[in-house]
């Protein structure tokens, strides 16, 4: 037991310790507050499908867009040592492209949805490579480079929409956004699992993970070792572009509506937070995508908990900030260092005392 705990702190799980502890604390807190909080029920939705329902489902379903974005954000963070703050605006653009394509003809067929999604992906990847070029080729600070798209992205989305809030209604869209008939798990959750598997496979069969880490730790050293660091950085932004398109598609499909002003608003900050809570260094280098995914669920669980406690949603952000300050400080290297020193001193003192005792005797 003690060994396992040590392993958890110092071994490979070390990075995941903070987000896992955070989730455990939130679960315990909720169970004390309301033992039925995590109860999952089965009911029929208005389309007559059997669906799962409950706070737990709300949490893992609601965090889907955030989880997908956090995966891509982790990669960008690791490679570039900076973050993309334009993901929300870019998702609005991708969503607008999706809706525009879907509305281009009278009928919405499966093939058309696929085409629309591919188009949305391509557009998001183009914007991703725009950001990536500024960062990788022109060596601009990622936050400054992506500030451009952050500022004008939603205007571009408006321009694509050409009006207020276009709506689309189709069984296929609602299958993506809520439930596929016959499957009681919300589809966005399945999409997150699919994306996680894809990332896992990419890391398993390519050297992307290793290359990204080495570029993040020391770009020049990586280049001297034959890794094209410019390309790796650019690639991370393009992969994030795919994540953005997926998140935008989920967001639009949930309600069958694109509102360029509110779609995934402020999600970039949550995505960066998810990366940070996941124990990844925001300065680049070593990373764990699983940490960021857990981080996303921590953020969503926090939000749902606060809603369940009927905290006014204007105050939710403030409470969220408090918890996050705590998490980030505990996760910081300085704190860890001091904590370790403190633990060592305690041990050392004990040793000292016992030695003294021995000497007396």
């Amino acid at each position, binding site marked *: 037991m003690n060994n396992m705990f040590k392993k958890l702190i110092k071994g490979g799980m070390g990075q995941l310790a903070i987000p896992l502890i955070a989730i455990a604390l939130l679960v315990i807190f909720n169970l004390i507050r309301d033992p039925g909080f995590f109860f999952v029920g089965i*009911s*029929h*939705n*208005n*389309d007559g499908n059997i*669906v799962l*329902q*409950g*706070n737990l489902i*709300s949490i893992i379903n*609601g965090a889907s867009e955030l989880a997908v974005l956090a995966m891509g954000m982790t990669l960008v963070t690791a490679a570039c040592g900076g973050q993309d703050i334009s993901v929300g605006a870019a998702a609005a653009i991708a969503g607008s492209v999706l809706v525009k394509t879907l509305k281009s003809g009278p009928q919405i067929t499966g093939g058309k949805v696929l085409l629309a999604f591919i188009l949305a992906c391509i557009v998001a990847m183009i914007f991703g490579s*725009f950001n990536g070029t*500024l960062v990788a080729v*022109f*060596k*601009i600070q990622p936050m400054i*480079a992506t500030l*451009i*798209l952050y*500022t*004008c992205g939603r*205007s*571009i989305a*408006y*321009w694509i929409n050409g*009006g*207020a*809030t*276009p*709506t689309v209604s189709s069984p296929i869209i609602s299958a993506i956004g*809520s*439930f596929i008939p016959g499957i009681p798990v919300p589809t966005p959750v399945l999409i997150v699992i699919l994306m996680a598997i894809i990332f896992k496979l990419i890391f398993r069969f390519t050297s992307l993970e290793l290359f990204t880490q080495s570029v993040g730790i020391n770009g020049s050293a990586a280049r001297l070792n034959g890794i094209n660091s410019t390309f790796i950085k650019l690639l991370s932004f393009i992969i994030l572009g795919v994540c953005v398109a997926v998140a935008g598609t989920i*967001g639009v499909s*949930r*309600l069958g*509506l694109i*509102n360029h*002003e*509110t*779609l*995934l*608003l402020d999600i970039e900050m949550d995505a960066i937070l998810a990366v940070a809570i996941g124990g990844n260094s925001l300065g680049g280098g070593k990373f764990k995508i699983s940490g960021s995914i857990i981080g996303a669920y921590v953020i969503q669980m926090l*939000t*749902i908990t606060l*809603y*369940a406690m*009927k905290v*006014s*949603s*204007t105050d939710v952000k403030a409470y969220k900030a408090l918890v996050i300050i705590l998490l980030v400080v505990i996760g910081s290297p300085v704190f860890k260092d001091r904590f370790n020193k403190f633990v060592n001193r305690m041990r050392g003192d004990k040793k000292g005392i016992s030695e003294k005792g021995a000497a007396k005797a």
Partner: protein
Amino acid sequence: MKKFSKILSVALASAMIIGLCACGSSTAPTTAADSSSDTAAVADTATDTATDTAADTAADTAADTAAAPAGDVIKVGVVNNPPSESGYREANVKDMEAVFSADNGYELKTYYSLKNDEQLQAAQGFITEGVDYLLISAAETTGWDEVLKKAQEAGIKVYLFDRMIDVDESLYEAAVVSDMAKEGETAVNWLLSQNLDTYNVIHIQGAMGSDAQIGRTGALDEQFASGKMNKVVQQTATWDEAEAKKIVESVINSGESFNVIYAENDGMAKGAVAALDDAGITHGVDGDVIVMGFDCNKWALRELKAGAWNYDGQCSPFQAQIISDLIKSGSAPSSKKIINEEKGFDATTITDADIDTYGLGE
């Protein structure tokens, strides 16, 4: 190092240019006018506002007024926010262009900006150009004193529409505005007329502090205070559809019962309905939960017609006809503040004609 900073500065400069280009193209209909403070460019914007049909009417206006005799037409200068601001503004701009058309004996000049100082400059331009009437929907409530005084000296009559300005009443003829509080009252009165045994209300608010939120919340808060209606939850979703869905979801998960959803705009009502659909709770006419929205988007009115929602309150962008009537009557309006009559639509009585006439957007 020097070389690096040189490269960086070039990169930054080019990034800025790229950024500008991207922004410029995205908001072409509006920002085309942004850089222009001279009056010639202001006149151009009438044809620049390429919002579907609006472009045609505006082009017609320009062509017709050139041929029309100078003395007969009434010159109207409109300073407004750009149509890209919202579906409301888009309808507002189209309405202005339709009512103050050459066919109705007007020569229309328009200027659209979200920035107060640019609006002020444009208004000044209209005054020197010598319009007969100046119509203003200001970006900000302050800073208009000097310009309106100049207009008065020049004998130009000023009408405010949609938004009030902090100036002395004598400086303008009348203000034609929406009364958000009245919108709330109309909606709440409709809700009371449903004669439910109990009212357990989920109240989803807009961005806190906005005019629409304060107005639409007021009437409902009175009912909560008097005990006539029970507040199940009152939360702001800041106009965000997805947030509204989460709020309703958390109430459903808590197992509390409710039978009314009062959302302060259409999008949030749609989000709330999505949560009901997922949980298998019926809504609308013959449903367990009454759904109420605001703004009268066309798609929302269609939901109403289909019986999925119960009520949609109007926030009317159609002030042009009222102002036109005032101008043509020639007499001073009876009151300085004219409230634009706004309707509320009931799912059981709404018609297709209503959707066409009052619906916003597509």
